[in-house]
């Protein structure tokens, strides 16, 4: 009785007609309206725009007015002499980043979790977030100077150790491309990535550690039996996210770091779409390549999430 009074009839919703309920909550539709319109224009209209891939798109004819060509551009892409190189590069870069980059924030978080000096910990954390807040353009500008063959710090260091060493043009050297991609990716993201693991670590009940200490567990036993199991669910969620982003090798970084001399290793799906589409004007072809990528990504995230939900109860939705 009192509950019904304080809720002022909100519990009787189910007895109202749909129209009456919608009218009752009309204010919330009003709040959602700008978002609904924006999503229709900026997300759903481009989805409708994927029709471009099945047409011979001409700007003056519009999306509907252009001629249908069926799957011609998809076949063209599968027959593209660069197809395998691009798919291989995309996967290689993503997998390298996954294997090397995924554990890095976990390790940083485990290290930070051991630090007892609060101010030192806070300082390290604040500094570690810094690279996340600068753009890849800035990072590449910094790298260009650091790795420059003309008195860049790294070449100078090498020559200080061995005066006979010749300067290396790291950014143009194919053999250095993947190491630079992986290391700069870790450099930029490790601090930010550690936030979520640190949160999971602080959520572990300290009593578990006390109990383990009473049982005589050493530092490594505590880490293996309490700390790591405590963050397994977090690791799982982030692993799903990373696996489903496997076709997203990191556009900004790769586009800004690739040079003509490294193209055979650095051309990925995203950079190829940009070059063929925006720079050369092959709109329909690039859209087809883009769809190829989006569809595989979507299938991947749904599959990985499904498998994970069934086997470990860790899932995104």
């Amino acid at each position, binding site marked *: 009785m009192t509950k019904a009074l304080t809720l002022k009839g909100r519990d009787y919703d189910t007895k109202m007609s749909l129209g009456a309920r919608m009218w009752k909550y009309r204010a919330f539709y009003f709040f959602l309206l700008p978002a609904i319109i924006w999503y229709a224009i900026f997300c759903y*209209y481009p989805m409708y725009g994927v029709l471009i891939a099945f047409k011979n798109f001409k700007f003056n004819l519009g999306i509907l007015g252009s001629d249908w060509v069926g799957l011609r551009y998809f076949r063209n892409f599968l027959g593209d002499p660069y197809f395998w190189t691009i798919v291989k590069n995309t996967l290689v870069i993503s997998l390298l980043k996954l294997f090397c980059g995924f554990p890095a924030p976990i390790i940083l978080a485990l290290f930070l979790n051991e630090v007892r000096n609060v101010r030192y910990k806070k300082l390290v954390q604040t500094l570690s977030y810094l690279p996340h807040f600068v753009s890849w353009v800035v990072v590449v500008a910094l790298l260009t100077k650091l790795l420059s063959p003309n008195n860049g710090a790294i070449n100078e260091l090498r020559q200080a150790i061995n005066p006979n060493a010749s300067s290396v043009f790291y950014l143009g050297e194919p053999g250095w491309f993947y190491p630079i991609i992986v290391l700069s990716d870790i450099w930029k993201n490790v601090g930010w990535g550690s936030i979520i693991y640190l949160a999971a670590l602080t959520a572990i009940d300290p009593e578990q550690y006390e109990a383990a200490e009473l049982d005589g567990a050493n530092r490594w036993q505590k880490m293996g039996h309490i700390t790591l199991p405590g963050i397994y669910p977090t690791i799982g969620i982030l692993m799903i996210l990373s696996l489903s982003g496997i076709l997203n090798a990191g556009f900004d970084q790769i586009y800004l770091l690739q040079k003509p001399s490294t193209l055979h290793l650095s051309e990925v799906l995203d950079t190829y779409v940009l070059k063929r589409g925006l720079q050369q004007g092959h709109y329909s072809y690039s859209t087809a390549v883009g769809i190829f990528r989006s569809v595989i990504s*979507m299938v991947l995230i749904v599959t990985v999430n499904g498998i994970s939900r069934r086997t470990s109860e860790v899932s995104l939705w």
Partner: protein
Amino acid sequence: MSTVNIKHKGDRLYYAILYTVLGLFCFTTVFPFIYSLVLSFNDGYDALRGGIYFWPRKFTLENYEMAFAHPQIMTSFRVTVLRTLVTTVLSVGLTAMMAYGLTEKKLPGRTGIVFYFFFTTLFSGGLIPTYVLYRQMGLINNFWVFVLPGLFSFYNTVIMRTSFEGIPAALTESARIDGAKEMTIFTRLIIPLSLPVFATIALFVGVGNWNDWFAGAFYIQFKKDLVPASTLLYQLISEASFESSMSTTTGQMQMNEQLMMAKATGTTPESLRLTFVIIIVTPILMVYPFLQRYFVKGVMIGSIKG
């Protein structure tokens, strides 16, 4: 309480290694910035001899004088500041409306509406259909291409909604009983109680805009007065890496002429570039450490619920 007394030798070694490794980690994080900061305060020609890492050898402010007197650099910062302010204000307001709209669990059709928003995180039209849309809307070579596409993000909405849901329902209910309209509840109750999350989203959107170089590089063509700072820096780096072979377009011609002029003073293209980097990075550096407590919370919510 497990107060830690460093009493064992093993412990002392353990902590020594731990603190050193983290110290080295900080050094690698910060050094590239220090390096370019130092070089930006050093004479450009003197810097060509190398050997400058932690302190300028031939101190000068000429790089900064040059940068601040450079018309294109200044125009680009005006564009960047303007687009960042406009997008951040609009985006935070609209995201808050969207998030508040999603807090009402009994809203008819809510599940469908949430899916309508969520689906866009799984599948998108891609670059070319988006470009076609912008062209059809007249956004190419238009200032609003910096603002409109970045107004909403599902991730930011989830962070805000979670924060709104943390406000005790009793507060909004009692306001409703007092006859307050939803709009009043939103502006008088929800917004004042959610300033930390507003700061977080403002930081995310603001930094994203400040750093965005893509829109300026590909959706702005031959309009120098609409090129943002990040895009200009991108053009400077790619110009440097492709040497002079790229210097045919008007924007880059001007840049080159300007850099030629620079040769009279103690400024080189490289020292000017690094100065530019420092100018771009400084505003971000001044803001993010103070919002740390809030955005850390935001990230946690975003990754748990997102």
